[in-house]
């Protein structure tokens, strides 16, 4: 375990001079295990950021194999989901812990 602490310290040193939160993030709300808006439009071939706010008391994982994103957002908390430049198309995502209701799609155009 000590080694992983060392590794974490190393990562800290390397990335300490990192970038701050980007402007122009697309807001996305999660409430009662449903995403609003359920359809998000982004510009194709440009990186974009989704600012996900989880209004539920329990944690949720924003999960999308199409977008190659896995991001856990704790209950009553928020987090940024960074999207790589996407070629035009439709990219579904879900809240993995409540995938029956928490569904959405990113449309790159």
């Amino acid at each position, binding site marked *: 375990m000590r080694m992983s602490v060392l590794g974490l310290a190393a990562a800290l040193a390397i990335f300490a001079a990192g970038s701050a939160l980007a402007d122009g993030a697309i807001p996305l709300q999660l409430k009662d295990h449903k995403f609003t808006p359920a359809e998000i439009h982004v510009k194709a071939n440009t990186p974009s950021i989704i600012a996900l706010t989880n209004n539920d008391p*329990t944690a949720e994982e924003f999960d999308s*194999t199409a977008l*190659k994103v896995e*991001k*856990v957002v704790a*209950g009553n908390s928020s987090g940024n989901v960074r999207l790589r430049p996407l070629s035009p198309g439709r990219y579904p995502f879900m809240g993995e*812990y409540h995938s029956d209701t928490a569904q959405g799609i990113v449309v790159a155009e």
Partner: protein
Amino acid sequence: MLASLLIVFREVIEAGLIIGIVLAATKGVPRRALFVAYGVIGGVLGACLVAAFAGEIKGLFQGSGQEFFNATVLLLAVCMLTWHNVWMAGHGREMAREMRQVGAAVASGERTLAALAIVVGVAVLREGSEVVLFLYGIASQPGTTTAGLLGGGVLGLAAGAGMSALMYYGLLAVPAHQLFRVTSGLITLLAAGMAGQAVLFVQQGGYLEVFTSTVWNTSWLLPEDTIIGRLLHTLVGYSDAPNGAQLIAYAGTILAITLLMRWEHRRHPRRAAVPAPAE
């Protein structure tokens, strides 16, 4: 119950496969089960800690703490796998020969057991923290019966353990004299896949934003979210739409491990199978 079974199973597949490979790679090394058990226990404890402090971890690095944590533990596992492979390249031959005897060379195989225990711990930690968050989430919902939740969780775990056993016994079907070569190859690809995944997490954290465009897309052929895609993702780092930086990390890791193994192999000159002639 079915939901919790499926989620737990999906999360434990990866750890299960890795444990199977580690067990096969350490066949014949004494006390390996103990080390693997240490790894699993450490990983489970770590997973509970990570789940409990998910909010705090996320807050680090301008909100990218989770991505860095994931990238760091993955890179740690890559280092440990590399070390194991390189060490085996130097000592594997002796070990294979002396396996049936109780010799010093076999006992020294325990050195990389610690490294592999860390790999197991990391795998369990990463997947386990999500399982803990998920189970905690449904447990705190009104109307969920704890019995169904636990039942699903336990069945999911059992299925993951079954995956371990399948991987292990599958590898044992490989002839003994080739087992080390096969597990070395598997571990190299496993490490390369983890390195690629680590790059993805760093990118998600908002750093290393170079070569982020998708290089090719094979999702029409084999989507990553099918069972086969998922298994290949874990085992060899398959991605249906890899980006440039990921591919560089993948290829770089394979190249680095291969070169290091060759170098170590040469450093340990071949010992003749027959006793060396007297000086």
